[in-house]
């Protein structure tokens, strides 16, 4: 053992000392002390509470400190549908949070609008604020939310830098989804639908 150590070019370290990159150390601290900002507007909020409570115990992953002030949080969990009257509030709270910060879109409604495809409900918060993790489900079970937080921890560890350079990449700056709405009246385009073409030719031959 002593022989190989002396032959190796590696640095000799005293006991209880590890070598790491400062970026990784910062990410390690951040990922293990996520402070969630609960933006719970619907039934997903109940599952969010269950996740924080004793049975599922989010504190096992260092994320149990729910704060109701955005100034003290670094993880926004949007749990539930967001109506258009609420969206300016959501954006303001997001802007009040300090960097580095992350966002989890919890449940079908927050991610896509869910079944509420109406004039009042925003069809996915990722159209208007950045989102890091999506949790499917209606509502998702606490295990799913915990999995999302674990995955987010991996993401933070992988790409985190002490100066937050990862947020300046082009990919993170892009709008998450093209703001394209469906046209008001769907027009049938036969050129892209072979079944429709067949039906049309059949009816045309019947007429002849």
């Amino acid at each position, binding site marked *: 053992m002593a022989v190989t150590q002396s032959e190796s070019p590696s640095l000799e370290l005293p006991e209880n000392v590890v070598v790491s990159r400062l970026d990784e150390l910062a990410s390690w601290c951040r990922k293990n002390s996520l402070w969630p900002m609960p933006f719970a507007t619907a039934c997903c909020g109940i599952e969010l509470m269950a996740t924080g409570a004793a049975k599922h115990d989010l504190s096992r992953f260092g994320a149990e400190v729910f704060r109701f002030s955005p100034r003290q949080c670094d993880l926004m969990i949007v749990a539930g549908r967001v109506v*258009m009257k609420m969206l300016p509030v959501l*954006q303001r709270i*997001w802007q009040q949070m300090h960097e580095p910060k992350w966002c989890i879109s919890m449940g079908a409604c927050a991610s896509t609008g869910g079944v509420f*495809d*109406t*004039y009042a409900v925003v*069809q996915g918060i990722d159209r208007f604020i*950045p989102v890091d993790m999506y949790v499917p489900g209606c509502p998702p079970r606490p295990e799913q939310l915990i999995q999302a937080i674990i995955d987010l921890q991996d993401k933070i560890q992988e790409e985190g830098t002490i100066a937050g350079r990862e947020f300046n990449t082009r990919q993170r700056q892009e709008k998450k989804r093209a*703001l394209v709405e469906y046209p008001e009246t769907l027009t049938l385009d036969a050129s892209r639908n072979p079944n429709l073409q067949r039906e049309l030719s059949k009816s045309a031959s019947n007429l002849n």
Partner: protein
Amino acid sequence: MTNTSDTGTETVIENAHVRVLNAFCGPVESSIYRKQQRVIVPTEKSFDALSLLKDRGFDLFIDVTCVDYLEYRKAKHRYGLVYLLASTMNTERLTVRLFVDDPQPTVASVVPLWEAANWLEREVWDLFGINFTGHPDLRRLVMPEEFTAHPLRKDYPLQGRGERHNFPVITRDHS
């Protein structure tokens, strides 16, 4: 008051309130459905008729709501307003209905009679665009202030006219 069946409507009414309304604003249409008295009053006399009913003991204003009869079979008018009144003295109930039409659906506000009508009329204004004359503070109640449409009208598209996407997009750079 006679009522022959629990489910059918009965037009022969000898309700005291209806008799008074008949004397006050001409023959009114009235019916009973499942033992509940309903009466249709003329729109231009609605305030006086409701004021009369308040004096006759209907001291509790339960609700005012609206129905859009666009493309409704046999409908003669566009909007129907429904007032639900009750008496705390003898637990009597009365449904008062009246009809208004486009282009300026207007009806007299009953806030001077029942303070409870304030927010209820604001809600009807917000969602159906019925104008309540004499209302002290006719603002939108549930939709945002800058909203321009009345979304519960049947000719308003379910998915809106782009209002839900009319927001600035915050990227990582902005926040």
